[in-house]
């Protein structure tokens, strides 16, 4: 691997990311999968970095999940998106940041479509007006939340309490990054680093001390594939794609996976359990899995937030070996305590994969 070659490509794919004044749109599913992730994104942006980032309680799903599952037509999803833009316009913002990469892909695709077909945009404006009497201006910048974290990665590194380094050996942790298909595969120029050698996540991992692994199936889909997973008859196909990725990354012995998409961390996490039940194989050390974290969770970890506050107990793969490797202290007893130390239920343990 010629690192300079990658750097050259990264330099070709740098996008402009305004440093402040953002309108934030959440993901429809991440809050239930990884509830700490979006929360700590806001905490980091607002409290730690002191940025102006606004969210409106009335915003909804972007509709991308239904669009990609072939359940709603494109004009509907465009109208939903138009409403999100209207909320942004009403709040007086011009920079739009979203938490989900399918949303990011969705917003980008719609804006590009409107650029090519202005008559469609006019029609959507009419639809929106008819539906809820709102009007909107198109955002000047659309970013994914990871773009922002990438932009502030060095600020975060400066404030970090931990580095992605093995405490015992001093070696950098081996990080697998997965940007998710909708981040830049559709519009390479809209993603940091392009589509082939994206650097949005690898930039974070490297800034925080880790070493990024480039394994053969790096570009491959996480396996979610929307209706491939949602339709049970196709679910084996979804699983097989994830399995292919793990088989490919296995020889590199990764310490963790850092991901972008709501689906990616979910499937890279949960399918490890399913694969272990089906094949008896686990991919981490000593019978554990490989922890799959969102970039916000990882940022939270290096900044020294409590793992359980970050919601890491919601992961299927146990996070503890990673915490031990980095040297992050945690209280095992508090793993399944919720707000105000209230007992939340303990999950049953898998038969193959070790989970604490």
């Amino acid at each position, binding site marked *: 691997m010629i690192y300079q070659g990658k750097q050259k490509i990264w330099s070709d794919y740098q996008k402009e990311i305004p440093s402040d004044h953002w309108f934030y749109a959440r993901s429809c599913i991440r809050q239930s999968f990884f509830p700490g992730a979006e929360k700590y994104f806001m905490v980091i942006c607002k409290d730690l970095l002191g940025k102006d980032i606004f969210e409106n309680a009335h915003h909804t799903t972007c509709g991308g999940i239904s669009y990609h599952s072939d359940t709603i037509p494109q004009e509907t999803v465009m109208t939903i998106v138009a409403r999100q833009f209207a909320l942004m316009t009403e709040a007086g913002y011009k920079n739009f940041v979203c938490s989900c990469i399918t949303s990011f892909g969705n917003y980008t695709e719609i804006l590009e479509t409107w650029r090519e077909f202005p008559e469609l945009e006019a029609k959507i404006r009419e639809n929106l007006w008819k539906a809820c009497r709102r009007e909107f201006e198109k955002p000047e910048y659309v970013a994914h939340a990871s773009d922002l974290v990438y932009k502030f990665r060095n600020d975060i590194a400066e404030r970090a309490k931990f580095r992605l380094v093995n405490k015992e050996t001093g070696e950098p942790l081996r990080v697998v990054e997965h940007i998710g298909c909708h981040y830049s595969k559709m519009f390479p120029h809209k993603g940091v680093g392009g589509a082939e050698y994206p650097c949005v996540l690898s930039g974070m991992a490297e800034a925080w001390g880790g070493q990024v692994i480039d394994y053969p199936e790096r570009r491959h889909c996480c396996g979610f594939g929307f209706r491939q997973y949602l339709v*049970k*008859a196709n*679910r*084996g*196909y979804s*699983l*097989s794609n994830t*399995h*292919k990725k793990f088989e490919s990354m296995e020889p590199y012995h990764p310490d963790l996976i850092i991901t972008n998409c709501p689906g990616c961390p979910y499937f890279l996490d949960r399918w490890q359990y*399913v*694969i272990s*039940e*089906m*094949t008896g194989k686990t991919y981490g050390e000593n019978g554990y899995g490989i922890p799959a974290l969102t970039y916000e969770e990882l940022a939270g970890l290096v900044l020294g937030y409590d793992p359980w506050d970050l919601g890491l107990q919601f992961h299927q793969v146990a996070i503890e070996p990673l915490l031990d490797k980095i040297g992050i202290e945690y209280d095992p007893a508090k793993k399944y305590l919720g707000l105000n130390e209230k007992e939340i239920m303990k999950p049953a343990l898998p*038969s193959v994969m070790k989970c604490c």
Partner: protein
Amino acid sequence: MNFGFSLSPSSAVNLDKIDLSLYHKMEEIEPDVRICIGCGSCSATCTGQPFSGMSLRKVILAIQRGRENEAREMLSGCMLCGKCTMVCPRGINTRHLILSMCRYWDGEDHGYNLMNEVEVKI
């Protein structure tokens, strides 16, 4: 545990892992198997094709890709009429190739049956 779905094998041909022993045997018997350009003349003219789907082009490709099982059925419909040999633009001795494939398909030499009593009338 039964999840109601399972891992499906990859449909990809992995050239590093396939078993090419049959192909190599064919290369030894009829080196011209290498020069097939997949034009499909053999399949288009095949007498057996309408009945069995025989396509020599596909059979050759299947053994090159280590997927013999997909082609066995086709070969068993060959009538050996020789039209494919007549039309092959690359001059491949297709009949001999087919006969040799039928003989060594499973990678074994099935030998001779010298004690056989037959009605020989040609």
